[in-house]
């Protein structure tokens, strides 16, 4: 009987360590580099809006609302890199694919919370600034919230959308690593499907808008929608693990 028997606590311990490393990477790249750029860009847009007295019909629309786009596409891109590039690296450092999957899931969770906190904070700051000018930010796209002061709903939408984008990013990265650029691209309709499903369920953002305006889609009750969205994220992360669990590391 060998002394080298793997145990669940070991998997979780090393998975946590992997999550910490990936989380630190996201914090460094996302927090120190990406977020400051987002803040500067949207602050500049806010100043321009203030200067011209409102972008469209004179009302002051929420500028920070559009931060939802970079706040999910950047983590998506980072996840693709993690799935395609860091998985083989970490396996070559002695991690198992299962441990990496645990770490990647923790990274998705922590990053989603982190970006959601930043997103929510941004909306509250925007409200405060608009308030100094006796304005209330108006929202253009459909959201879980009709008022950006609804902190819980803002946080929920940001975290769920960022989370599903990151989970799908891992899957996209894994397919590109295994099959290469051509097939990886051909598989995008499948690998981005979780994102579309969550946007549809949330009835938020671009695809939510298309569903509502184009097909008369109505959002289901939130006690159904939220668990369903979290379930999709969990299934996507599980699918990522199933996809890589027998994956050979390329020479």
């Amino acid at each position, binding site marked *: 009987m060998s*002394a*080298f028997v793997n145990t669940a606590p070991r998997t979780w311990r090393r998975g946590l360590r992997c999550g910490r490393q990936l989380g630190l990477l996201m914090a460094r790249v996302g927090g120190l580099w990406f977020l400051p750029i987002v803040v500067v860009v949207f602050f500049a847009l806010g100043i321009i809006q203030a200067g011209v007295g409102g972008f469209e019909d004179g009302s002051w629309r929420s500028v920070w609302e559009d931060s939802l786009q970079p706040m999910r596409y950047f983590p998506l891109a980072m996840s693709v890199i993690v799935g395609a590039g860091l998985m083989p690296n970490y396996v070559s450092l002695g*991690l*198992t694919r299962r441990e990496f999957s645990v770490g990647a899931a923790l990274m998705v969770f922590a990053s989603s919370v982190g970006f959601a906190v930043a997103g929510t904070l941004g909306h509250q700051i925007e409200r405060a600034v608009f308030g100094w000018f006796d304005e209330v930010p108006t929202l253009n796209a459909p959201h879980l919230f009709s008022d950006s002061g609804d902190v819980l709903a803002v946080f929920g939408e940001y975290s769920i959308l960022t989370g599903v984008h990151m989970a799908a990013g891992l899957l996209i990265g894994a397919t590109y690593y295994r099959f290469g650029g051509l097939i990886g691209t051909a598989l995008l309709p499948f690998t981005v499907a979780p994102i579309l499903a969550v946007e549809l369920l949330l009835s938020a953002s671009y695809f939510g808008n298309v569903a509502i305006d184009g097909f008369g889609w109505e959002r289901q009750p939130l006690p159904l929608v939220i668990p369903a969205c979290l379930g999709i994220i969990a299934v996507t992360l599980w699918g990522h693990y199933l996809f890589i*669990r027998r994956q050979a590391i390329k020479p």
Partner: protein
Amino acid sequence: MTLGIDLRNVTVRFGDVVALDDVSFSLEGGKIYGLLGRNGSGKTTLLSLLAAFRPVREGKVLVGGAEPFENGAVTEQVCLIRESGIAVEGSTVKDLLDDAAAFRPRWDAQYAARLSEMFQLPRKKTVSKLSRGQQSALGITIGLASRAPLTIFDESYLGLDVPSRYMFYDELLRDYMEQPRTVILSSHLIEEIGRLFEEVLILDRGRLISHEETETLLMSGAAVTGPAHLVDKVTEGLTVLGQQQLGGTKSTTVFGEISDDTRARARAAGLELGPVGLQDLFVHLTRDDERGPA
């Protein structure tokens, strides 16, 4: 701590290509092993199985008595350093060393710092911007400082210049004496590195054609040199690996046990019996005139 290795009837196929063909061997561990083979002989595939880089589909691989694939208890003890692909784009030397420190339970940070200094590695530089030699040095630093009970270098030092390679050989030997472990070195630079090997495994077209202690392997061949007709007479019945003739003088390399009687007859006839270098033996054992370079 050292790890033994057992391979039982391992076969790996890539479509129609058989990369490893029914390979079986046992390594007791605690030695420096040389894994030799021509390009495409299956060396990297074999090492990938040991490090759980790929699953075993036919046969069985045991490291420390346990199957390594998806077994974290084993994989954290195995460090395979390859020639390329050690970092993702944008990673710095420091990032890579930090990751190794996080995941390698026996990581020696002080030793890593000393090796980084010795190889003059710029810690803040991105790995992709390092020269090939510096990338090799980084791989070596990670491999040695990991202090993994099974440490494998798969041609990972080829990018180093000659002085740096000799520094690596000396450092490997020194550290191995201080911290015994199982080391596998795969290389084409047999003349340089052969002195380190305690046992040698030779792969050829996916098959293990030799697994011997280095001394035994070297003793299993001889170069018989002298007048052609006498050389032919003495080497009659032996496995001839190669022949060279210049005028009436001939040198025949034979493989297999040469009896004391044959040796005595050869010397009595005025023939010279010289040793065969590991590289020469390797070339002879893996030469296939039908096959072009891989």
